């Protein structure tokens, strides 16, 4: 992977939490996944970085944000969801269905086994 490609998301993502070295800081693993998916979709040309920056800003500047910005990646995920929905890659309905399916799958998965969506008893 070329490293220069990942600099554009970093430079252009408003308010992205960063370490003193300029690397993104994730508080939880899902945040890293959301970040990486966005970088990948951009690399693949699914959206331009301007489109992404606009979608993210729209979420970040909505009223009701937490004062400590701990919901930054919640906004990130909301922006990514909206963008892929607007691009007709998926629908809100499909995302909601899959979200619930993953939650049931997690609950149904015993310790020590990988959590797979196939583990959802209703799927």
């Amino acid at each position, binding site marked *: 992977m070329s490293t220069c490609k990942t600099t554009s998301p970093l430079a252009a993502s408003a308010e992205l939490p960063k370490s003193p070295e300029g690397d993104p800081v994730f508080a939880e693993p899902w945040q890293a*996944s959301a970040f990486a998916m966005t970088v990948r979709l951009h690399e693949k040309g699914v959206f331009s970085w301007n489109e992404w920056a606009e979608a993210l800003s729209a979420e970040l500047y909505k009223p009701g944000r937490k004062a400590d910005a701990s919901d930054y990646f919640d906004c990130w995920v909301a922006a990514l969801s909206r963008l892929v929905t607007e691009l007709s890659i998926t629908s809100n309905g499909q995302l909601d269905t899959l979200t619930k*399916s993953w939650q049931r799958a997690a609950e149904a998965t015993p310790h020590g086994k990988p959590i797979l969506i196939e583990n959802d008893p209703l799927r």
Partner: protein
Amino acid sequence: MSAHDHGHDHDHGDHHHDNHFTDMEARVKALETVLTEKGLIDLAAIDAIVETYETKIGPRNGARVVAKAWVDPDFAEWLKRDATAAIASLGYTGRQGEHMRAVFNTADTHNLVVCTLCSCYPWSVLGLPPVWYKAPPYRSRAVIDPRGVLAEFGLTLSEDRRIRVWDSTAELRYLVVPERPAGTDGLSEEELADLVTRDSMIGTGLALSPETQR
């Protein structure tokens, strides 16, 4: 469903679900699923992107816990006795209030923690899990042949050093306290924390020595 349905032989009393996804975790998995199905992302590419960051970032909480234990014998004793409380005293608590246990490496014993297949990795203390750590072969092989797995990570331990493998559970998660490296007498707690790598707190590595760090 109850704990009894799990067919699992850990003995921890009344635990309910082993695994749980928060709304955000599930939402991200949902995005991942649909984007993978559409052929727009593949997990190997995602892992590769995450991997470029995972060792550099993430909470340094565990490293600070270890450094404090190195310099403060009372804290080390507390950590040994009640890791949950000792770690919480520094302001670090798990998201789901899971219990922590600290296992100390000694001249006789090396500790290795396995299992991130489900959601039982204490990232609030250790930072992001390494990608390889989530791979099913790692878990099973670490239990059967810990010495071989460690050797693959470049950590060859003498035959007389016992290796204890700890399988973290939904309620109890482990932090390995690596041995303090030699030649670190004059270092501050902060400088010591920089020597404590994530891998050393999982047990697949040792704390860095001041020379290797440079």
